[in-house]
């Protein structure tokens, strides 16, 4: 891998703003008084060919889903069907959110249909599409729960229970919602400890946040009892949708007793992750909670248009918590979500889960590392044993594959949290297993110096944090 200079190392051009030095040339100076404008702007000025090469080169230094397997447990990195990009790029999708309802019936219809699809898939009564990511979905869930309790005169409930093995966002979201987080240990088999749960539940419990299958890939078999316990004390049961790809067509959160859930569309419906977003985190709720959902939602009017087509409209739920996004969320991601679901249908979605579970079980069988808990579904957590899991990951890079999520959940020592997803072929899984096993047979020296075959070698994290240089300006100041 060759080093690619920063844009600023290729060019920096300072343009004077305002007065005579106005960049707009033909104009008579600046259109604004000097005291309302900045003095100058200094940025790279490069031609289109130079930029094309810069970003092409940068892209070549990235491992994407089209590069090979990406078995990041809980992150569910699936192949992203190319056609969904084309539908999101349709000119008719490029509309402004402040348009009149009459003039965006297409957008409203698509959103309505997606609300409906998601409701059916999750077994939920009402869905909002507004949250722009999974964590934002969690936040909506927690805010809805809070509003619900408040409305019922139970504003004193100030605790949210979160299992030890839950995603970090669960804890952070509960805290952002103003709740005290009550951490719940796992039982010996890696599932919710019912006794511990009973002990944690109280009249102060606002909600229990749960992933099912959990982060070990294990189905919480006692989910019906868990739901009963939570509901008994007046709490709500929240479903973290990160692992929904394991269950499509076989179990629905709504049927398990969950009151509110979010969907991670990139994990369950194959929208691209974009190197960290945009995502979408729609939230589904049971009827009792529907009045609290964010505004607006979309509904069908009773009457039809002159040409007989249904008419859609926005409406504010009766006791809405208001907004969690300035407009209506990540629309283009929602278009891709809709297209994916409409492409696969019942059979496709069910097959996606079946293949995801099959793949995880097959891969686990093929690798030399121990997998302490089971039976698992779409992901499993192996233990690197005497090896350092983070080093294992670095070394796997040298074998041309993406490593699993590491060192989490902590219940498994030196965890290798692995989720191949349904898109990998047997051949690829065998190749991936070979990479695991090659690393399993290596000594610490090989692991500690890894990776050796990547664009960058092992990167010093400590130095980055100790001496933060977060912009090219900071680099210049340094030199």
């Amino acid at each position: 891998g060759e080093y690619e200079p920063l844009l600023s190392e290729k060019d920096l051009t300072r343009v004077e703003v305002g007065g005579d030095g106005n960049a707009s040339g033909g104009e008579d100076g600046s259109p604004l008084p000097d005291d309302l404008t900045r003095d100058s702007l200094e940025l790279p000025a490069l031609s289109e060919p130079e930029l094309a090469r810069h970003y092409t080169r940068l892209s070549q230094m990235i491992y994407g889903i089209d590069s090979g397997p990406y078995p990041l447990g809980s992150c569910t990195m699936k192949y992203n069907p190319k056609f969904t990009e084309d539908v999101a790029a349709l000119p008719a999708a490029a509309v402004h959110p402040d348009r009149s309802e009459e003039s965006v019936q297409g957008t409203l219809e698509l959103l309505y249909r997606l609300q409906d699809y998601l409701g059916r898939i999750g077994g939920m009564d009402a869905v909002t599409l507004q949250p722009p990511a999974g964590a934002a979905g969690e936040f909506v869930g927690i805010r809805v729960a809070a509003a619900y309790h408040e409305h019922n005169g139970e504003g004193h409930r100030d605790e949210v229970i979160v299992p030890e093995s839950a995603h970090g966002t669960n804890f952070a979201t509960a805290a952002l919602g103003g709740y005290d987080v009550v951490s719940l240990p796992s039982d010996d088999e890696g599932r919710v400890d019912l006794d511990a749960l009973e002990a944690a539940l109280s009249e102060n419990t606002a909600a229990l946040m749960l992933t099912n299958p959990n982060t070990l890939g294990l189905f919480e078999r006692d989910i019906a009892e868990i739901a009963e316990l939570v509901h008994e004390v007046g709490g709500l049961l929240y479903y973290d949708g990160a692992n929904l790809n394991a269950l499509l067509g076989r179990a629905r959160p709504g049927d398990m007793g969950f009151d509110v859930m979010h969907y991670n569309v990139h994990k369950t419906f194959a929208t691209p992750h974009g190197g960290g977003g945009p995502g979408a985190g729609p939230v589904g709720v049971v009827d009792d909670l529907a009045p609290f959902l964010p505004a607006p939602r979309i509904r069908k009017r009773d009457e039809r248009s002159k040409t007989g087509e249904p008419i859609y409209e926005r409406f504010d739920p009766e006791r809405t918590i208001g907004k969690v996004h300035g407009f209506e969320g990540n629309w283009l991601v929602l278009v891709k979500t809709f297209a994916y679901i409409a492409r696969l249908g019942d059979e496709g979605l069910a097959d996606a889960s079946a293949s995801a579970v099959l793949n995880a079980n097959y891969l686990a069988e093929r690798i030399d590392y121990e997998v302490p808990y089971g039976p698992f579904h779409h992901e499993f957590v192996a233990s690197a044993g005497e090896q350092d899991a983070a080093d294992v990951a670095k070394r796997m890079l040298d074998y041309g594959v993406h490593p699993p999520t590491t060192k989490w959940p902590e219940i498994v020592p030196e965890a290798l949290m692995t989720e191949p997803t349904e898109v990998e072929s047997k051949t690829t899984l065998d190749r991936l297993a070979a990479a695991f096993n090659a690393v399993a047979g290596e000594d610490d020296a090989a692991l500690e110096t890894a990776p050796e075959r990547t664009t960058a070698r092992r990167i010093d994290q400590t130095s980055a944090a100790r001496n933060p240089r977060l912009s090219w300006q900071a680099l210049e100041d340094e030199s």
Partner: protein
Amino acid sequence: MHGSHATGSPYAPHTEADRTAMLEAIGSESVEALFDIPADIRFDGRFDIDARTERETRRLVRSILGRNDDLTELLGRGHYGYYVPSLVDHLADRSEFLTSYTQYQPEISQGFLQALFEYQSLLVELTGLEVANCSMYDAATALGEAATLADRVRDTTGHRVLVPDLLREERRSTLENYVAGTDLDVEAYPVDDGNVDLAGLEDAVDEDVVLLYAENPTVRGTIEEHLDAVGELADANDALFVLGSDPIALSLLERPADVGADVVVGDASVLGLPTSYGMGLGLFATREEYLRQVPGRLVGVSEDATDRRAYTLTLQTREQHIRRERATSNICTNQAWVALRTAIHAAALGPSGMVDLATRDVTRARELAARLDEIVGVKAPVHDRHHIREFVAHVDQPARAVAADLERLGFAVHVVGDHEIQVCVAGVPDERLDRFVEAVAEVAR
């Protein structure tokens, strides 16, 4: 498309033979037997969603979206339809960018990390602040995060958050949700003819204020004339001064650092995204002193084992996946790919292009206002201020009727008062503006 898959996911590759071999290796009789789900909660129904071919799915979406009217949008108020160069699509759509995960393995993510580092640097130049994160969801959520930052960093026991009473209601509502878990309260301070009412603000501010928010330009397209005074007021009361803006406006308007801003929020996707029903890119920049309280991801420079420069996500101990309930935010997935698009668009414009674009936004808005003002039944702009991109016009007719009539003629405008419409020139070609003036003349009298 994939022959052996008459049913099932077209994106799952197994043939029947593969499946058999794999089950045999696992020692399971069937795939269904791998599901460890108690019978009483098994779902045995159907979603009743039909599978479709790729082509049918494309036609379905096209036919649904075809119900959107083809209008010339003179709409703004926080979301804009600037022309995005083709280069941006072609580069950002490279699958390595589009389909990679968050850069937790920096050794194989150098390209994305560098692009985000360059995005951060762009914002540092535009704002004059030392630290920019690599994205929040949008302007509204970025403002919400600024409020929780204020809650964390202020020594005082204050609980008041002041925002202008001219603020998009959605933005305020989002802010209120973000502070719902804190002791903060959101209050409005007065605005005078489209600018901060300095006297009114002075009356409103006290030591209890932890955050003072202003926007430049405002939601009505006016340019604030006394931001330095606002900054001083905030400073005098030990309140965080948070300024809302965007990269195009910042190319021309006063640099936030120069008016004392502590945090800049806004929508950076004015560059990089075409109109997309409000999908955006939360800009978040702040002073170095708040570095360890910043929400979201930061890309920093480090060295690899061969001492070559390398980029990595840094200061991750602020984040939820490590700090859990003590994180600076719950954000995980952000808008990284949009930040990439913004960075490419900015690079394609270059500094002159950016200044020119903002300058044209001022002159074209001014010219359009002047032309509308000549029409009987219209007064524009309503506010006696400088404007960028957009302005409010008074119409003698009821605004709703005017807007509906304009829609029939192919133009979308905002209704912002009983007799006020708001129009935006961003991204609208000149000849469309000409036709718009004719249309207004036709319906406004």
